[in-house]
């Protein structure tokens, strides 16, 4: 149960003078059920990479296996693959087109050819997942909603396909902190409760550090490192070389460590940092009491 990418290379405009090697011999395994982040600077090839996972782009060479099935060969049922591997693009609200929120969310399920009854159930569930009430917004025009709501409707449109794998290309771009949190918590919920594999594309380490279990760092079309948060963040100098910064909280802990405080540096969220800092403070108090 996984997506396996084998020696994937992608060329844009092959054979022309404008040929660009967007991806260069990428091999990568994505486990079912994991929360994976793909991180890299703009233009590193991360968006190009994920568009191969559901057959939107065809590799120039290499193979992609979805649970053992090669999806790059001719004759595969791409529609089925796209149902299983959902894809939410950057600014998904720009793809809304229907007259009502309900119809827009129902667009995907209807393309699957299921009964209208099932469609309705799926729409209701998907809207509920993103925190919208079908009764309230279902019959409204998606274009009357606020920006954050529009994005949630668009995400519901993909969730209604009930994918096993969900790819999100910078889903929090241009959202306020609250909107960003809502989306990240939604992803975490999907991952934990519904066992959806999440593949989050981002350039923000801070965002990635909150929920992702594993990180893939892409640079100039190649995989630079793959590993757990701790493994990837340990290579600070290498990350900085490719223009990625550690989350401020991790940086703080590293600085403290350098300044001689014995703190754990594999700290990625304010919560973890708090407990680490409390430890130092307690230790100091204990020592202080001893002195008296």
């Amino acid at each position, binding site marked *: 149960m996984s997506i396996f990418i084998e020696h994937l290379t992608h060329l*844009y*405009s092959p054979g*022309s003078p404008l040929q660009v090697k967007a991806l260069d011999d990428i091999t990568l395994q994505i486990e079912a059920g994991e929360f994976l982040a793909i991180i890299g600077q703009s233009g590193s090839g991360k968006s190009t990479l994920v*568009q191969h996972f*559901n057959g*939107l782009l065809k590799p120039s060479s290499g193979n992609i296996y979805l649970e053992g099935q090669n999806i790059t060969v001719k004759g595969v049922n791409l*529609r089925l693959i*796209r*149902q299983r591997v*959902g*894809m939410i*693009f950057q600014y*998904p609200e*720009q*793809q*809304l*087109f229907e007259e009502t929120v309900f119809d827009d969310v129902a*667009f*995907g399920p209807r*393309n*699957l050819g299921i009964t209208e009854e099932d469609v309705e159930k799926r729409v209701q569930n998907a809207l509920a997942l993103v925190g919208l009430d079908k009764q309230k917004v279902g019959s409204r025009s998606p*274009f009357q909603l606020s920006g954050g709501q529009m994005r949630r409707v668009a995400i519901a*449109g*993909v969730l209604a*396909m009930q994918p096993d794998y969900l790819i999100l290309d910078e889903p929090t771009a241009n959202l306020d902190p609250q909107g960003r949190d809502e989306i990240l918590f939604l992803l975490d919920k999907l991952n934990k409760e519904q066992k959806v594999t999440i593949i989050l594309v981002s350039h923000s380490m801070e965002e990635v550090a909150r929920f992702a279990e594993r990180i893939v760092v892409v640079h100039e079309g190649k995989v630079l490192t793959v590993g757990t948060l701790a493994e990837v963040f340990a290579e600070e100098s290498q990350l900085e070389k490719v223009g990625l910064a550690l989350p401020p909280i991790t940086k703080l802990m590293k600085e403290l460590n350098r300044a001689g405080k014995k703190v754990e540096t594999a700290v990625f969220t304010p919560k973890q940092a708090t407990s680490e800092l409390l430890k130092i403070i307690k230790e100091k108090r204990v020592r202080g009491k001893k002195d008296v």
Partner: protein
Amino acid sequence: MFRNIIIGQYIPRDSKIHQLDPRTKLLSVFFLLIATFVISNPLGYLLLTVFSLCLVGTAQIPTKIFLQSLKPIFWFIVFTMGFHFFLTEGKELVHLGPLVMTEEGVKRGIAMGWRLLLLIVFSSLLTLTTSPLSLTDGLETLFNPWKRFGVPVHEMAMMITIALRFIPTLLEEAEKILKAQTARGMDFSQGSLWRRVKALLPLLVPLFIGAFRRADDLAVAMEARCYRGGVGRTRMKDLQMTGIDLWGLVFVLLVLLAIIEINRLGVWSI
């Protein structure tokens, strides 16, 4: 999918032809097109062909690219020649069933095909060596006198410029929306014609909404910078005719005159 489409064919090089003022090139093409259509004898064709080859050589554009620009018009030329070969009355050359190829037809067909070829070469030379923006600049300045008669020359040029600027942006957006809807199971390669047309809606609606939003944003941005049309507007880079432009134009006019003169004298005429 849309990545291979190149708007305009401009190929930047550092040639004498590239350096010419766009107005010079526009006028030259105009004169050369007249020349192409008034030729009536082989010496004229020879002269114009040699001249066009000289221009192509000076422009430093690979021959391959010229041949590519001929591709879409190739069959048109073939058919034109075919029609002339068989549908002109005159001295019989070959019988092909009910079709009769005549000597006059072959002459006319070749002449017509050659003219079309020259036409393509001259107009390609213009678009290959002039960026779309400087072309519009050139057109705007050339049509400036019409302003007096109420023709909104500047506004039209501005519209062309903006349209050109946004074609790649819109193509990119269309590609993105297409992918997003494909990921949601959209398919417009199946079903009846009506279904396929309907299947375009999920692509067109977001594209139009995006275009209107962009237009709105652009209008605000232009107003914020006090744009108010062409009256009293100056340019950062004024078009300037230099010596080379003058000589170029004189030369082109001489070619045109030479061709008219050759026609009149009827040297080598057939």
